[in-house]
């Protein structure tokens, strides 16, 4: 069997697992089928935190929109939100249907509608031949329409606008095919099995008396028909088993945890108990839950030790990593104060060209560099070591007016990590040139 035949003989899921383990996938598999993020040796986790997101229990939708777009762009390492989504939703086109699974079982602490609609709105920024992705191809869903309504969502089953309905909605229901969830037979929402091509898991930060925590992995209890009989043995391994079913594992491409607020005690019932002002993004569902569990633990959650399903999902089901050494964790702080929406001019800015100090600085393995352009134009950004030798050609393309963010991962032009020391970023644009010193510490 040739290598090509071998590739053709295995399914995508098996390939992903192989590729994750061996790291060879990025060289041999067609790039348009698998995002390079999936094949990265470490799981990328983006935590966007912004104090402007909430005021008491009030959520600032505009701030959340910026947070979501910042998170997705950082996750995809692409500065255009539409293109970033295209990278994450590999193979998406204007006919695709994207479902967003929210968690509304507790109307006092559901996935907050401003977060969900920010995700949905950003999906419509994907352009196909200049035409935005159709709103009507986006479905926000949960188990029942009643739960969605109670949580503040507006139901929509019409042929215009973003759709929103429960699996119990007329004509929807559950699959005829059954799934073996560690010995318990379940059917799955047709929204997952039949309606959608891509699945976004949008959970909320809560503890859980039985399963320890209820984050992205447990969110799919609202996708199956009879979750009540999947709670024995701390819901383990029912939760990872459910998440390993083909319709979920093959379609689910992005996992997001709405951590604006949290419940650390008495969950999944109850009202918000603390403000976290974070949204967590990753393609690795286990890594998102690992981070979420850590946040709850920091708040003194007393059910953490029951959340073994996260570890089982990693070790027994290979759904992701629970090893922090295998996570590439990036924190984006207060994007509402540093990032403007495209085309929006900051009235305080009178300069043609701004280069901000990188953040963090000093940095260990990754840093972000932001710059502002008063008008569109070509930008060239290179990095030099302290002896003036070019280390990395970081950026060379034409950009729009506004703020832009570039990430440097501390590698040189051949992909090798550079040594600790001082480095200079030089940015050129038309007749302007600016430089900035950064410090790398290993």
């Amino acid at each position, binding site marked *: 069997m040739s290598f090509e035949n071998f590739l053709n003989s295995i399914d995508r899921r098996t390939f992903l697992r192989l590729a994750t383990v061996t790291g060879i996938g990025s060289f041999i598999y067609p790039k348009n089928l698998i995002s390079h993020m999936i094949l990265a040796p470490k799981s990328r986790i983006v935590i966007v935190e912004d104090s402007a997101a909430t005021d*008491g*229990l009030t959520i600032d939708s505009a701030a959340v929109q910026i947070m979501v777009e910042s998170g997705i762009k950082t996750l995809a390492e692409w500065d255009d939100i539409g293109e970033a989504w295209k990278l994450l939703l590999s193979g998406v086109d204007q006919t695709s249907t994207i479902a967003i699974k929210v968690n509304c*079982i*507790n*109307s*006092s602490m559901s996935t907050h509608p401003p977060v969900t609609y920010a995700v949905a709105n950003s999906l419509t920024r994907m352009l196909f031949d200049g035409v935005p992705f159709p709103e009507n191809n986006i479905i926000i869903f949960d188990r029942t329409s009643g739960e969605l309504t*109670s949580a503040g969502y507006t139901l929509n089953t019409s042929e215009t606008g973003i759709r929103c309905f429960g699996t119990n909605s007329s004509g929807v229901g559950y699959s005829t095919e059954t799934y073996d969830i560690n010995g318990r037979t379940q059917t799955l929402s047709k929204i997952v099995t039949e309606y959608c091509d891509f699945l976004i898991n949008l959970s909320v930060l809560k503890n*859980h*008396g*039985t*399963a320890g925590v*209820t984050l992205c992995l447990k969110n799919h*209890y609202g996708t199956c028909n009879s*979750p*009540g009989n999947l*709670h024995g043995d701390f*819901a383990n391994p029912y939760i990872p088993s459910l998440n390993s079913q083909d319709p979920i594992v093959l379609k689910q491409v992005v996992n997001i945890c709405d951590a604006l*607020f949290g*419940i650390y*005690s*008495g*969950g*999944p*019932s*109850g*009202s*918000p*108990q*603390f*403000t976290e002002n974070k949204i967590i993004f990753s393609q690795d569902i286990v890594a998102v839950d690992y981070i979420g569990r850590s946040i709850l633990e920091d708040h003194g959650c*007393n*059910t953490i030790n029951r959340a073994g399903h996260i570890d089982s999902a990693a070790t027994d089901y290979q759904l992701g990593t629970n090893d922090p050494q295998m996570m590439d964790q990036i924190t984006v702080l207060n994007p509402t104060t540093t990032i403007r929406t495209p085309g929006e001019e900051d009235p305080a800015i009178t300069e043609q060209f701004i280069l901000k100090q990188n953040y963090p600085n000093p940095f260990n393995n990754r840093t972000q560099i932001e710059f502002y352009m008063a008008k569109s134009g070509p930008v060239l950004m290179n990095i030099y070591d302290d002896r003036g030798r070019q280390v990395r050609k970081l950026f060379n393309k034409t950009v729009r007016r506004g703020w832009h963010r570039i990430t440097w991962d501390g590698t040189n032009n051949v992909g090798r990590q550079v040594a600790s020391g001082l480095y200079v970023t030089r940015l050129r644009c038309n007749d302007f040139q600016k430089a900035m010193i950064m410090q790398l510490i290993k």
Partner: protein
Amino acid sequence: MVQVKKNHAFNIKRFLHLLTYLIVSFFALWIVQCEKNATENEEILSIEDLLVDNNEITGWSYDGASWLASNISELTTYINGAAEIYQRHGFVEATHQTYRGKIDNVDRQLKLTIYNQGNENQAKDTYDDPDIGLVGAIDWADGAGLEAHYIRYSGLSQALTFYRGRYFVHLEISYDTEESLNILKQFAWNIDGKIE
């Protein structure tokens, strides 16, 4: 004369017998009636009757319909995995109602859930279960129920629980001020009065 005295004594004796009979009958009837009333009260007082009525506490009206869960499966439908906490302490039935009212000129939501846990011991076990989420709560001395406590989540929300008899009562509100705590206490007093 002697005969008259004898008849008089006889009449007094009969009168005393009759009086005793009447008193015993009266008490017997009274006891039967009391038992009957007690039975009727139990029949009338369903768990849903314990809910606070619409606007019974001024300014707090129903927000949506109530629900009643008569078994653990139904409870799971309403509160998902949290049902297990109540199941392990003898869950019998539960009812819930959400209310809406204004505090500081903004709409706030208050949620009331009443659980019948079968008996007082099981209601207390439920109250003491750390999974209910009131670890570190403040005791509400001389409050509602046999024991009551509440917890405040700074600026965000409050929860209050108490138990009396076979009932465990859980209240929560999406706000945290002295006024919102006072509203929770009013609800608690109201329900406790109905249980008594």
